[in-house]
């Protein structure tokens, strides 16, 4: 049987990679597209000789591709070193350029690159409101409306959440931001190419993107900045990227980023959605299990996240690793600060439930056989860990 073959492959050290929310494999087409810009066209895009001109052309062509993918203009795309930098730039850049206003709104389920930037802005005298979310991770539009003040600069939200896959309603939020005349920033690192982004339809002013979640290289990303947005540059130096982001452009990585965008298509989304739903329905058959985040089309096609009663997530990840499956967890024991995931706490999970979490994230390279193998393997691991657990017996009585 196919699953048995996968089991053999796993034993032969072939990893079943279900941690695509952390990062993804670079697609072969992407690697191939980058090589000429290391070996032949290695010129600095700011120079005026032939090699420089060729590099510049590749840079601007890539910018067009990225711009088109979100219905923006090429001059509205600034290349950065990734999602973290784009988020820092969007928030700090608008905050300081509009510092007479001093108020920012975000949510409790942001990526650390937004949350910690907001915390730092608080230390610089800005006021930040962190919106709550409901049990599936959605913000309340009325709460957003109510929290907007005269002096609010922007609202920043994670489009599709990296832990629980919740997709926020951009169109509705965009209307509110436009009406109240505040900037609207989204962190689209997880959603890019998987959920439609249209900066005009959704009234977006700033969009953070990166390449390594979509089979592109690490260390490259982009920030969409709508024309006429008041933003100060954050990294000073030369006149690169319309004077907004200094530093010699990483042309090979940017070419790879654009290639990664070009080779995505809707059949990938369909396939991931089917496998995701199969995985969810099978894993939920394990007693004492819950799904974190919403079901259906408001969930990112590549994301699943579960909590298992009476066992701890890092231990689950450890046993899965032994079985050849790469996964991740929001458990306190896996975090450096010994606090379980702030996202799982924000949707109302107890410390124990958050500690017992497991995230399995798919990509377009994930196969049905791999999902079958995961479905076969996981219940045994959960059972084994529950046998170790002092809570296992209590659980038996409950079930």
């Amino acid at each position: 049987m196919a699953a048995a073959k996968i089991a053999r492959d796993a034993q032969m050290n072939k990893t079943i990679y279900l941690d695509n929310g952390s990062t993804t494999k670079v697609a072969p087409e992407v690697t191939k597209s980058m090589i000429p810009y290391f070996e032949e066209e290695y010129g600095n895009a700011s120079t005026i000789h032939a090699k420089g001109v060729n590099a510049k052309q590749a840079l601007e062509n890539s910018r067009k591709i990225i711009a088109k993918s979100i219905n923006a203009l090429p001059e509205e795309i600034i290349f950065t070193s990734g999602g973290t930098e784009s988020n820092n730039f969007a928030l700090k850049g608008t905050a300081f350029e509009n510092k007479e206003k001093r108020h920012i709104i975000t949510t409790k389920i942001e990526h650390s690159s937004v949350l910690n930037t907001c915390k730092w802005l608080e230390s610089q005298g800005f006021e930040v409101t962190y919106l709550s979310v409901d049990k599936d991770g959605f913000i309340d539009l009325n709460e957003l409306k109510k929290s907007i003040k005269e002096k609010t600069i922007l609202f920043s939200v994670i489009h599709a959440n990296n832990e629980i896959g919740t997709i926020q309603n951009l169109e509705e939020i965009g209307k509110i931001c436009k009406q109240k005349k505040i900037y609207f920033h989204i962190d689209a690192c997880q959603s890019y190419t998987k959920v439609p982004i249209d900066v005009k339809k959704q009234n977006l002013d700033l969009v953070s993107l990166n390449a390594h979640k979509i089979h592109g290289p690490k260390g490259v990303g982009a920030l969409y900045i709508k024309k006429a947005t008041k933003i100060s540059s954050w990294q000073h130096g030369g006149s690169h990227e319309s004077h907004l982001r200094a530093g010699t452009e990483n042309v090979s990585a940017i070419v790879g980023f654009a290639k990664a965008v070009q080779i995505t298509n809707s059949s990938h989304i369909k396939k991931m959605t089917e496998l995701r739903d199969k995985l969810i329905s099978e894993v939920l058959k394990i007693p004492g299990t819950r799904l974190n985040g919403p079901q259906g089309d408001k969930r990112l096609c590549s994301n699943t996240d579960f909590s298992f009663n009476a066992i701890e997530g890092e231990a689950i990840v450890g046993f899965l690793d032994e079985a050849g499956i790469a996964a991740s967890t929001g458990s306190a024991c896996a975090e450096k600060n010994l606090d379980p995931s702030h996202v799982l706490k924000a949707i109302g999970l107890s410390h124990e439930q958050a500690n017992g979490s497991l995230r399995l994230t798919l990509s377009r390279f994930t196969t049905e056989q791999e999902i079958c193998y995961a479905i076969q393997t996981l219940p045994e691991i959960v059972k084994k860990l529950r046998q170790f657990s002092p809570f296992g017996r209590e659980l038996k009585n409950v079930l």
Partner: protein
Amino acid sequence: MYSKETIERFRNPKNTGEIPNADAVGEVGNMKCGDVMKIYLKVEKNKIKDIKFQTYGCMAAIASSDMLCELAKGKTLDEALNIKFSDITKGLGELPQIKIHCSVLGTHALKKAIENYKSNN
């Protein structure tokens, strides 16, 4: 992140489970990360004849519980009380600094079990 010894022990712990008619039980929880450990003892002539653990926790917590049981088995109660946290980490081939809090649980649970035994006998 973990040593070979820790991973091996985590994968194949030899001392998990309950002792149904245990002479003493000790349970402690970790306020920091939420790990919980329970130690079961069977005592004969003041010696630990059998010892088992149940642990809710990460790889480090499970591996160090198992290491502790191995170290304690066959020792007198007083000898077992002298098992130090560093004996466990030595047996595990060092633990990451961040994981130390998970492994101190073991010695606390054992101490509690022995105290429970002494106060009942």
